């Protein structure tokens, strides 16, 4: 068990863990960042999604060694102080959650999508989000929230 340093939400975290430990376990157990959820541990549900260098990754499938030296963003680091990220704002306004257990993963996947594609089509949304399960079936509202976020982001940039 060696010392590992990770860059998460703009902060440096140092801890001792086996290098093969999944990033999700480190976040939840050692760093008290419980916003990323365990839903399957096999990369199938998306509830553990975080951004690594701006791209959506399933943190249950990423060993800590592979995350070292990268910029990691979790749901806790998305808002700027009191100001929510436009995707968070859109999920709130569209009521795109029921039990909300999938929500942090959905938001992180959506942020990754909108980082890469400013105005995604229906098919692009479907493809990017296909790995995220919402067992409560909030899909139509989540799609609506992503569209709204795209508009909010464009407004912010123009």
């Amino acid at each position, binding site marked *: 068990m060696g010392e590992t340093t990770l860059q998460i939400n703009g902060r440096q975290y140092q801890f001792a863990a086996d290098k093969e430990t999944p990033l999700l376990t480190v976040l939840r*157990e050692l760093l008290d960042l419980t916003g990323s959820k365990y*839903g399957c541990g096999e990369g199938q*549900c998306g509830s553990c999604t975080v951004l690594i260098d701006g791209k959506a990754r399933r943190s249950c499938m990423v060993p800590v060694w592979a995350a070292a030296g990268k910029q990691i963003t979790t749901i806790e680091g998305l*808002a700027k102080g009191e100001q*929510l990220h436009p995707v968070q704002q859109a999920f709130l306004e569209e009521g795109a959650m029921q*039990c909300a*257990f999938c*929500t942090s993963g959905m938001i992180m996947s959506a942020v990754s999508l909108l980082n890469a594609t400013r105005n995604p089509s229906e098919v692009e949304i479907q493809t990017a989000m296909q790995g995220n399960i919402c067992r409560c079936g909030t899909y139509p509202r989540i799609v609506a929230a992503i569209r709204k976020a795209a508009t909010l982001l464009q407004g912010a940039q123009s």
Partner: protein
Amino acid sequence: MTPKPKMPFTIEPERYELTAPASYVFQSDRREFFKFLGAGLFIATAFSKAEASQESGAARRNPEDSLPQEISAWLHIGEDGTVTVFTGKVEVGQNIRTSLTQAVAEELKAPVQSIRLVMGDTQLVPFDMGTFGSRTTPIMNLQLRRVSSAARDVLLAMAAKQWNVDPARLHAEDGMIADPQTKRSLSYAQLVKGQQIAQVVPAEDPLILPTEWTIAGKALPKIDGRDFVTGKHRYPSDQQLPEMLYGKVVRPRAFNATLVSADTTEAEKLPGVIVVRDGNFLGVAAPSSATAEKAASLLRAEWKAEPQPSSKELFEYLKQNQLPRGERNDNSRFESGNVDTVLASATRQLQQTYNVNYIAHAPLEPRAALAQWSEDHLTVWTGTQRPFGVRSELATAFHLSEEKVHVMMPDTGSGYGGKHSGECAIEAARLARAAKRPVKVVWTREEEFTWAYFRPAGVIDVRSAVGGDGKITAWEFHNYNSGAAGIRTYYEVPNQRIEFHPVNSPLRQGSYRGLAATANHFAREVHMDEIAYSLKMDPLEFRINNLKEERLRAVFAEGAKKFGWAATKPANHGFGVAGGFEKLGYVATFVEVAISRSSGDIKIRRIFTAFDCGAIVNPDGLRNQVIGANIMGIGGALFEAVEFENGRVLNNLFSKYRVPRFSDIPPLDALLIDRKDQPPVGAGEAPIVGVAPAISNAIFDATGIRLRSLPLAPLLVPHGLRLS
């Protein structure tokens, strides 16, 4: 259904028997309860007699308790104006924290931000059987409105007394009592300052009419939504305590196994690891989840299990393993007229069998519990739809009286009827007792898919006869195992025999959204379609022709208009319809599918629901629920099935058990019929029942292939077709 103990514990707690009464209204010392609340105004309301026996279990009564009647709800207004409302209902995604807060705000005339709901904490809330059966809207909403309006009246009286005026001329608004004549006003905080008032009032106060609502009935964003979009909310699986250990249960390789031997030496060598063996329970606790997993893998356990049935032979098994007649209750059978005679002589008759597989709830948050002991007091945080039921299970498992067990329920990652039982709580508590430290157990996805319980599978045999005029003359309907909910037909049939046959189920089974109504509607509504086809009648017309019930006729007729049932279909498209009646709601579901002849792909083009659940309270919330139920129904209709073999679940991962994803969701729309003349009823379940039969009927319309088993998708494969 008879509960069937199947967990590897020496002490088997009750499973999904939903009627267990609890013994006390107040569990903790009353003085402690008031200390928790502090000064202010405390108001409790009592159930009416009829409601009491129905809702809270008539046996419940504490002779020590000074409260005279069955208490349904209570609330407290503190010296700072904070309103705390206590309810035994819990939040698992139905959004009742928000809708109940709205109801309180409306009746109490207090700002939404001043209201806090304490939910599902067995030490603080009135006894409640559990959150299931679509009962929150019709019952708890009403109770909380009553207690709130009672509290408002008390506040009005307090102000009237202070000013020495008639309370009738005073006005409550936005957390204030105002006197329009003198322009004086007092806030609720000012009124209750320094007071310590506790009152029980009968629950009869007039309520504000829906037409006069200003807060309730409006769309309100999820009340603590910000905590969810920022990851701040702590679900049961996110709970932590200092010194906490991580627990892991060692599972046998098959259901119903007994532990023969366990070699714990290697596991116990790991630093900080505790191993517990107690009867058939084998588990470990360790300072990290990785160590716990390692320790569990080092345990050499030997289990013994008898051979068990497999899903391949499931449907034959269900028909051959009925419970003996003596173990059934009387209302599982219904008969009228003379079915046998009519069937014997009928020229047009039809006989078919319909099957439904076991499906899993698969809540996205698996079962989780954190347990802590202090001497012989046990505190557990866990996700359950029945906190009081779990408290009983824990009390039984550890031979404690119920006052020594405190169950708390943080808002949880869904349940769908799948989290009624407390096995994970018992596991965490058992490990914590041995470790003398708090222990958290979070089930893996594999465990959740294997050791939870399932929606019952079923076989349904239907036999019918119909006259030349298209009127059904005889109807015989036998359901093996899936349950009696929604088993009776709403079509007019003079000669009927309808029977539910309970079975010694090969898997643990229990509650689920809509439960058996889904299976019964599937068989009935596909069979109706088959009769219509055999008569060359339009399936919708055939249904209406056999219906008297006016509200059901209306959802069929109005839904058909909106859907465009009579319109000409494009080539290779099919329409399907199915309807029904469940939990007092009337529903008709219409589906359009399209098939590509070249690729063999079948696509659901749209699903349209016409729904009547009485007066509509919150249209936005209602639409959301109807569509949510549709989406949940799609999974069970198309691809969900638990595959098992000799006591093991084979598809115990999301990679093997397909649930609906973004690409599986067709356009969904609903017509909500607002019946102002009818009381509002719950809407979480009825809209699920028509989905599967309407899809099956639409596929038949497009392809001529009749699908009589759920899930439908695998049945298409031999025909060279697939759902895309």
